[in-house]
């Protein structure tokens, strides 16, 4: 039981607990966002364990650092008006829960059919997954998707500005 294996299962348990907690905090929006933060930090740790250091760092910076902060901004700016949730439909809860259990079972069963001859090597054995190799591949073989992503981000920024503008404001 090496350190990597133990920490993988610990981080996986933390990620699952955070995801379930995010669903469980119905009244408290800030607690739900913080649970999702726990999930993202755990996932970032798992990425680092699997040798994807750039993905781990970017997940911390982009998802945990920018996306969740944006969600917190909108949550706290929408204020009390946005908390009125309306009446709950009791009949659908059982159906939704049953569907969720079935989907979870199907997903995990599907994951189990992945061939057992594909082990994951510990990160210390792999010298090729580092940031250098990723950067080289990104800007030689994958430059078109990177540029397309840049345009997507520009379009998203312009769209968010346009959508959140008030009527008549510059």
């Amino acid at each position, binding site marked *: 039981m090496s350190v990597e294996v133990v920490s993988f299962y610990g981080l996986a348990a933390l990620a699952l607990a955070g995801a379930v907690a995010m*669903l469980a905090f119905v009244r408290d929006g800030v607690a739900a966002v913080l649970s999702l933060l726990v999930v993202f930090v755990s996932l970032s740790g798992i*990425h680092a364990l699997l040798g*994807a250091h750039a993905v781990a760092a970017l997940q911390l910076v*982009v998802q945990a650092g920018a996306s969740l902060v944006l969600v917190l901004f909108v949550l706290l700016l929408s204020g009390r008006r946005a908390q009125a949730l309306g009446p709950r439909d009791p009949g659908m809860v059982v159906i939704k829960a049953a569907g*969720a259990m079935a989907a979870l079972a199907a997903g995990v069963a599907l994951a189990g059919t992945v061939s057992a001859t594909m082990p*994951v090597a510990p990160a210390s054995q792999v010298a090729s997954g580092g940031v250098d*190799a990723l950067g080289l591949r990104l800007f030689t073989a994958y430059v078109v998707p990177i540029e397309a*992503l840049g345009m997507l*981000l520009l379009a998203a920024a312009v769209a968010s500005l346009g959508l959140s503008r008030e009527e008549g404001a510059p």
Partner: protein
Amino acid sequence: MIPVEHVIGLSAALFTIGVVGALVRRSLLAVLMSLELMLAAAALAFVGFDRVWADRVLAGAVRGQVFALLALTVAAAQLAVGLALVLANARNRDSANAEDLSVLKW
């Protein structure tokens, strides 16, 4: 050695929790957060398979990490536009309930 089916199983479980959250939660912000969780689970699946194939194909093959970065970036763009929509919705009507957006419902 972490077996790859455990990584993919974790990704499947997180994705399913995200799907459940997107369907069950009534607040629009919670739906957006569940969508983020789904894309993060997909990025984990990409990285898990990348770790498998990077040892077998050639050194420096980092396709899985590239696609994980794609998934993260698309998640960020989607969240930005979604939050702008939530803000516009919260400004025009007083509720952030996803079931109140029913003008197009039959």
